[in-house]
């Protein structure tokens, strides 16, 4: 594993292994995810990249009979110790899902869902959070006149940006994105990609993608997973131009996967 990012470390995994029942999904994953950068996870379906992503905010916990071994540190603190406050962890590590999952509530209620749960009650604070989050997700100008309308009336791309706004509203430090644009049309995809570029200023972003061009366009670092192993991790430029590993090169050039 050759890599030495110049920026400070945000997430670090050491010997991370995940088992579903008896099936091992990840094998000894050592990674260092730099702060305020975009890290893309690529690899064929079933390679473990989503499992890896979901182990960073402990979303794997909700799948029964899942076992996690090894260490995952965020800002130097192991998140798999017994005393970890899951609610606080997931507030700090936001997640955007592959299939947009707006709640069947109004646009406004979707955005304030997180803040309300974390105890924000003041109406004015909530209003401000809604505005800044929607601006942050590039959705404000399109919905500011219909915040009380159902989120389900939005288009697919808008729904996904609403989910990003909803994640931003709890003021996370890290955003995990699981193929956030895979179900969207090219125009909406481009919007999400632009958005990722803007968000990296304030957030550490880890994104799973099936789209090589997307990984090349949006990310600073790229990790290539194959059959539960991390094959290569490096800055995106290097991975896409002169990968060290033959498997990485084969995958990127489309020879398999």
């Amino acid at each position, binding site marked *: 594993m050759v890599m030495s990012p110049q920026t400070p470390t945000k997430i670090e995994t050491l010997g991370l292994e995940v088992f579903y029942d008896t099936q091992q999904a990840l094998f000894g994953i050592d990674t260092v995810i730099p702060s305020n950068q975009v890290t893309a996870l690529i690899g064929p379906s079933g390679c473990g990249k989503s499992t890896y992503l979901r182990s960073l905010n402990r*979303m794997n916990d909700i799948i029964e009979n899942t076992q996690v071994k090894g260490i995952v540190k965020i800002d130097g603190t192991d998140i798999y110790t017994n005393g970890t406050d899951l609610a606080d962890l997931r507030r700090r590590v936001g997640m955007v*899902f592959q299939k947009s999952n707006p709640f069947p509530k109004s646009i406004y209620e979707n955005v304030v869902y997180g803040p309300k*749960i*974390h105890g924000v009650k003041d109406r004015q604070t909530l209003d401000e959070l809604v505005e800044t989050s929607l601006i942050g997700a590039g959705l404000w100008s399109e919905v500011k006149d219909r915040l009380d309308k159902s989120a389900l009336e939005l288009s697919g791309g808008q729904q996904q940006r609403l989910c990003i706004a909803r994640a931003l509203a709890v003021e996370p430090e890290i955003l995990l994105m699981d193929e956030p644009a895979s179900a969207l049309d090219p125009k909406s995809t481009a919007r999400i990609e632009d958005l990722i570029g803007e968000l990296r200023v304030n957030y550490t972003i880890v994104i799973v993608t099936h789209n090589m061009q997307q990984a090349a366009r949006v990310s600073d670092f790229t990790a290539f997973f194959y059959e539960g192993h991390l094959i290569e991790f490096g800055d995106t430029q290097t991975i896409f131009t002169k990968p060290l590993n033959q498997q990485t090169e084969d995958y990127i050039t489309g020879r398999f996967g």
Partner: protein
Amino acid sequence: MNAFRQNHTTIQDTVIRWSMRFFTYAIVLGVGYILFDIIVKGIPAINWEFLTGFPRRGGSEGGILPAILGTTYLILGSIGVALPLGMASALYLSEYASQGRLNRMIRLAIITLAGVPSIVFGLFGLGMFVLFFDFGTSILSGSLTLAFMILPTIIVSSEEALRAVPQALREGSLALGATRWQTIYKNVLPYALPGMFTGSILGIGRAAGETAPILLTVAAFYLPILPTSIFDQVMALPYHLYILATQHPDTQKVLPLQYGTALVLLFLVTGFNLIAIFLRMRFRKKYKW
């Protein structure tokens, strides 16, 4: 050859469609006739005295107010007990309990319970509430017995309603840092409530109509006074109907009263169901998806 084959399948389709249609209409007609019969023969018996008076001369004359009130209390009592209990069990089984073998066995047991004859629940209520807990033959014993009888229906339909809520909504909520209970309370339960009310609608009908369980735990043949506490006995519409139809010295003479009682029972059940349907619609409208 090709034309023949097409023709053959078309005929088959038509035959199947028409026989399905025939059976459906036959069922609707049958139920419709029963309803029609009760309404036509019941309406003449209904007047102010019938609805607000006490039975006189062994039910040959007078009204059925105590039975109307009794059945109303029993419906409210049994739903009041069974709905929260059933919802809690369904929540536990589908949201908290691990989905292993034990869970599947509990589910199977609940579904089996739904098919247990009502007289068995009546005997259980007699042994458990009337005698063991010493509640006597009372509204309390009857309501609890009926509650146990309709619990399986409510649990099963509540579970189905919970399961119909997409997992993605739970994950979305958890990922925002909500606890499991916050997620259930704010982002699962509201969407499942309409379906849970469906279970209670089915339950209301059974609780109102069953005779065997209340026969052993609460129902009185005749009471000159209205109940003043949950430890009192009450009259009930289905039991009253049973008495008029089989125990009365001149069942032919009181036939109109039987129809009147049946009609009132139907109205009462319909009324309660309308309330439940109204509540269900309100929740549906609030959370469209």
